[in-house]
């Protein structure tokens, strides 16, 4: 699944994106120097804890940051630069790029019935359809996501959250013909069983329609289910880029490892009943006055000393770890090879890797989560 997309086929190409809020003299830099490419049909996850800037990043991609935000860098969809061109941005919204929101209850206009809202969307993106065709299209959309057609006459408050998220997905995936769907924590507000259904629905629709997706979440399981590769975000920067296999089997950045450790795991919880779940100490640094060195240094368990506090590490390729090389040695031949991270797939922003890369030697030890 992992392929280095060539420049011409990149659906989304983000270069050096920065989003800063507030006083230009002392800005709060919510997103710093982010590079992101998404190929056609590809699904990319962005994970990180609350406040890491992942939602801000996603909204900036569609120009939905508030008027108080300063956006720098480039956003190209289908090779067209959008970053500083509101008109081009507006043409792309909903048509080429659409979005699924975290909280479906607030994402629908409470004043209209669902049918009229979806109908309006369809009219916007498929102006060639007549009134009856539009109505039929809306019914078909709802039917595809498992909402009975007669519910078009209901107002949003008459639906459950899970149903509304289905409708939201219908609006994002089926109203226009998007090539890229941005999903902002699409299952966070849902309970677990409904979440599973929504995940399934998204996966089916993607398989059916072949659109690309950028999924922002703090749920690592969701990333495992829906994404091909993943960026880990911390304090507004990408600190690791890896494959799904790489994320779970050989996380390269100390933050990623800590994140994985903090995710509750049923087996582990059972073993350690009564004792505390592992947590990460501290919190996300103040983005208005970030530390000069590695932003994760104050919370890092694998702190190297002065260099971590002083210098900001680069996002560098990580040599494959012994763990990654051996973990799937037992996998049936020909099956795991395409999901295993290959050299260059994994990059991390950490002095440890910089050091090991310089020494040209083997990877850092003791990193298996």
């Amino acid at each position, binding site marked *: 699944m992992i392929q280095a997309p060539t420049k011409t086929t990149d659906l989304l190409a983000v270069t050096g994106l920065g989003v800063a809020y507030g006083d230009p003299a002392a800005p709060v830099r919510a997103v710093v120097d982010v590079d992101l490419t998404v190929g056609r049909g590809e699904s990319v996850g962005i994970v990180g804890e609350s406040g890491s800037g992942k939602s801000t990043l996603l909204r900036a991609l569609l120009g939905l940051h508030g008027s108080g935000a300063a956006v720098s860098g480039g956003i190209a969809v289908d090779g067209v630069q959008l970053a500083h061109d509101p008109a081009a941005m507006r043409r792309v919204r*909903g048509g080429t790029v659409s979005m699924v*929101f975290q909280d479906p209850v607030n994402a629908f206009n409470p004043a209209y019935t669902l049918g009229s809202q979806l109908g309006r969307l369809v009219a*916007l993106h498929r102006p060639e359809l007549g009134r009856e065709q539009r109505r039929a299209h809306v019914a078909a959309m709802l039917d595809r996501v498992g909402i009975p057609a007669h519910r078009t*006459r209901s107002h949003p408050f*008459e639906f459950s959250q899970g*149903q509304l998220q289905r409708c939201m997905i219908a609006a994002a995936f089926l*109203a226009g013909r998007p090539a890229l769907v941005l999903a902002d924590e699409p299952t966070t507000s849902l309970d677990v069983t409904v979440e599973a259904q929504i995940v399934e*629905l998204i996966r089916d629709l993607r398989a059916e329609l072949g659109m690309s997706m950028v999924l922002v979440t703090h749920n690592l399981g969701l990333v495992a289910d829906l994404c091909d590769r993943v960026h880990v975000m911390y304090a507004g920067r990408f600190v690791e880029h890896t494959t799904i296999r790489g994320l779970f089997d050989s996380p390269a950045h100390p933050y990623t490892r800590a994140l994985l450790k903090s995710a509750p795991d049923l087996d582990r919880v059972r073993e350690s009943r009564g004792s505390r779940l592992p947590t990460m100490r501290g919190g996300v640094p103040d983005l208005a006055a970030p530390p000069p060195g590695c932003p994760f240094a104050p919370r890092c368990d694998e702190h190297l000393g002065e260099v971590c506090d002083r210098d900001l590490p680069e996002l560098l390729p990580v040599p494959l770890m012994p763990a990654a090389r051996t973990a799937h040695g037992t996998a049936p031949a020909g099956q795991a090879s395409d999901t295993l991270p290959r050299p260059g797939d994994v990059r991390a922003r950490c002095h440890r890797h910089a050091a090991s890369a310089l020494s040209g030697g083997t990877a850092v030890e003791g990193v298996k989560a």
Partner: protein
Amino acid sequence: MIPAQSSLPSGPAAGPERVLGRLRAAAAPVGRAARLMTRRPAGICATVLVVLLAAVVLVGPWLAPDPNAQTAAPLTAPSGDHWMGTDNTGRDVLARFVAGARISLLVALVCTAAATVVGTLIGMAAALRAGGRFDILTMRLTDVVMAFPLLVLVPVLSGVFTQKGIAVGPVELDNVAIMAIAIGIALTPVFVRLARASALAEVRKDYMTAARCLGARRRDLVFGNLLPNIATPIVVQAAFSVAVAIIVEASVSFLGLGIQPPDASWGTLLTDARSQLLLGAWWLILFPTLGIAAAVLALTLLGDELRDLLDPRMRRTFHGKPRRRAPQPEAATEPAGRSADGELEEEIR
């Protein structure tokens, strides 16, 4: 829910039936509104009073033609000939009451309508540029206007306008129109503030962002998405404002600073009545007072009812039954054929 469709036969419909269906469809919202309004005692009360007032305004002139004809003996008590008695110059009080109702209600309705539209537009524009120069200027201006009591502001404004004389094209505005403009200006800030405050709360909500990111145009955002969601408090306020406008007009006219004799308004009727009260002419003061009280009560109740009716959540309780046709088993909405458990395991691994 739409009678036009359910009442039509499935094949090609005959002409008259189709017309009838169309008519029925067109009348459906009115009928529904009427049904909804008459569910509760307050609503019935408001509806009856509003219909009565409308009847007085619309039909009244045929019952009592000339408000200034001095056709009877002065100061006669209500009787079969003169239902509301006569005043000190022998004019029929009913005729003057009806003419006064027309002017009072016309002034109140016109000025409130204008204030609502203008105030809402300005308020929304301010909210969309919140913190900008236009917003700040507008807010300070509303502060200034709201700092004056209505009873001071309206006579001053109408005095100034009367002095200057306002002409719209070739038409010189008379003092009724000037009165309406003055009250309209005095009422506008309330709507500006209300629209701005409601809009500020709404533009931050996700559905506005969602509409934007799914491709809605600016005009559609403002009038299609924002306006319907801030309309409820504004419509309710408009109903109350009509009541306020009636009182202000009556008060200002009572003080002799508004509508000028011989034009009748409920306020000028009260002015005339004041000097006759000691002579025992109670009917002169009773009927205009009742008129004002009834109108204000009607509009206040109407405002209260509208507040509930305009909330889509309340409509269901008014209907008393859910609007969907058949109850749908919850299972029908889930995609069949896969248990959630396998998914769950994978999720947690």
